[in-house]
């Protein structure tokens, strides 16, 4: 039987001596014992209590110091422990069990503990896209500060009713961005933390939308103190987005179709904005939205390759939403008119005609984009065109 020795010198348990004792016990061979000596006057009292609490056998050594026979508890604690998959993205498992819970991916997980039911999105084939880790890294690097990224003090002059049109469009954007914030936030709280890159991506997406809400609100209030109108039909359209509980379908409706359409809207504002601040906030938001769309499309492409029934479900989700919104007004008429006025920039027949054409071109660009993205998901061109036409008139 081996008896190892440990001299603690003056170090007491009230200053961390247990760390050295623990380390020496771990290094013992099976059946080994540890003789501990030291000059702290309380060593015997504290070591006795400490050993008792940890299930070690403590004895006063007749020659000098104390002898410890380690108990099995520390070893037993890891009986049945398992690795929560591998740490790297390529080592994720398809169905992480609920009891891994919040454990870091790849951690050694002690058996027992809770099996929380709230991470119900726990299937790799439903959640994952190989692009997620790279998109997250890109998103994290592309964060901008609303206080400094926009030249809020840029000088410009706008007629009151042109400014009112800008305020109306900003009001509409804030409402839509709030929906785009809540949806990923709700989904992310259900994603199993094993798929942390997806969680991270959704978290950054929600943070992106929080910034968009801020900059659009700030632009709306740059010259006045009142926001524009919010239509019942617009809110009904957004409510139908929030009502979709399925991760894949919510991601499809929001990112691929909704935010996809918004890319054209934000490009329109970038091109036709009557002032530099509006142009800048639209451009910043567009870069972020492009990333959200990229993840949505990548995720669905990945899934469509694995699941031949996916396209049928995507189609049904568009049709369901269209039917649910059939009796609502769709886009706030104030918003449509505001877009025309904003692009016209002045109240002449020629300018209004120009603005109107620009809005029509934007609608076509939205439709083109939706059809292209639907084609990437494997829809034939005629079906893509048909489904694109069913998309909400509210754009998002």
């Amino acid at each position, binding site marked *: 039987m081996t008896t190892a020795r440990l001299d603690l010198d003056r170090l007491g*348990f*009230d*200053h961390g001596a247990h760390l050295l004792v623990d380390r020496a016990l771990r290094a013992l061979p099976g059946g080994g014992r540890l003789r501990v000596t030291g000059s702290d*006057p*309380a060593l*015997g*009292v*504290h070591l*006795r*209590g*400490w050993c*008792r*609490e*940890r*299930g070690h056998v*403590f004895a006063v050594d007749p020659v000098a110091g104390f002898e410890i026979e380690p*108990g*099995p*508890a520390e070893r*037993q*604690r890891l*009986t*049945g422990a398992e690795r929560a998959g591998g740490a790297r993205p390529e080592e994720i498992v398809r169905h992480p069990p609920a009891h891994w819970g919040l454990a870091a991916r790849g951690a050694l997980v*002690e*058996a*027992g*503990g809770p099996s929380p039911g709230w991470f119900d999105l726990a299937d790799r084939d439903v959640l994952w896209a190989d692009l997620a880790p790279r998109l997250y890294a890109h998103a994290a690097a592309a964060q901008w500060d609303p206080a400094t990224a926009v030249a809020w003090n840029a000088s410009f002059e706008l007629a009151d009713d042109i400014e009112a049109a800008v305020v109306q469009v900003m009001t509409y954007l804030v409402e839509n961005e709030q929906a785009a914030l809540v949806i990923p936030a709700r989904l992310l709280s259900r994603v199993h933390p094993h798929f942390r890159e997806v969680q991270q991506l959704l978290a950054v997406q929600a943070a992106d939308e929080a910034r968009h809400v801020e900059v659009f609100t700030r632009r709306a209030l740059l010259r006045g103190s009142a926001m524009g109108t919010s239509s019942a039909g617009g809110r009904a359209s957004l409510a139908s987005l929030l009502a979709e509980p399925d991760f894949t379908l919510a991601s499809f409706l929001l990112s691929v179709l909704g935010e996809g359409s918004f890319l054209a809207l934000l490009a329109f504002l970038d091109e036709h904005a009557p002032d530099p601040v509006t142009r800048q906030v639209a451009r910043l938001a567009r870069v972020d939205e492009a990333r959200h769309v990229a993840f949505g499309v990548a995720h669905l492409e990945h899934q469509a390759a694995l699941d031949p029934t996916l396209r049928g479900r995507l189609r049904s989700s568009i049709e369901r939403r269209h039917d649910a919104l059939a009796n609502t007004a769709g886009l706030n008429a104030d918003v449509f008119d505001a877009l025309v006025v904003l692009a016209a920039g002045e109240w002449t027949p020629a300018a209004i005609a120009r603005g109107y054409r620009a809005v029509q071109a934007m609608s076509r660009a939205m439709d083109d984009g939706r059809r292209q993205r639907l084609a990437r998901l494997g829809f034939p061109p005629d079906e893509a065109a048909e489904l694109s036409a069913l998309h909400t008139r509210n754009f998002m």
Partner: protein
Amino acid sequence: MSEQTLLMGAVAYDPKVVTIWEGFRGWLRDSGLPFDFVLYSNYERQVEDLVAGRISAAWNSPLAWLRAQRLAGAAERTVRAAAMRDTDRDLTSVVVVRADSDVSSLADLRGRTIAVGAVDSPQATLIPLAHLQSAGLRQGAGLTVHRYDVGVGLHGDHVGGERAAAAALAAGKVEAACMIDANHLAFIREGTLAPDATRILSQTAPYDHCNMTLVDTAPEELATRFIDLLLAMSYADPQVRPLLDLEGLRTWQVGRTSGYAQLDAAVDQSGFYDDRGRVTAAEYAP
């Protein structure tokens, strides 16, 4: 139901007692034992019910064990200490002074004031006071005792009295305080005592703490299975490990009665119970 169920008493000294025994109950029932528990507000009523046969088993403090023995003797019943935690064996209590105190031996405490825990605490009052008495120091005769009566009736399970005694020492209200060995370190870690601010003056001989007491009226087969199951609980079992952690043990061990002589003598010396188990302690109202 009582004919079919082994009924155990436990004292609710802390809300976690509910968690612990509900958990153990689930595990015992899953293992095939019809088991239930009742909670008591103090140990005196629990042991009276045990000896009267209203419960079959009692999770007893060491003081409750001694009273159960005395009550059983008077009622011509028998009780046995069937199991105990590994952590119930070989505890010691310590008498602590401030590091800068001029007291260097128990004899130096003559004429001084010492803080103890609750009137019914074996570890922070009864055993340390008997220890001091063996050095010739008695309350009123050379020693002033400040008692911190927190959780009276819980036999010192509530750590409040012991902590209050330690705090009184730190605050300079008393010149010594009594506590369990492990609590001296625990009070330093939690900040009740500052590191290096106290010195251990004296340590008692080892003694044992709680045990699972069975009365002879317990249904024998169920009682045997109950103890066998306790002894079979493994720290390697993830279902019971959190409960074992909460109850402060790694394994259940077969009960032994060799570690209660110190407390038994202290009970006699202080007149806490008489030999028939009647409560005779002054100022004790659980």
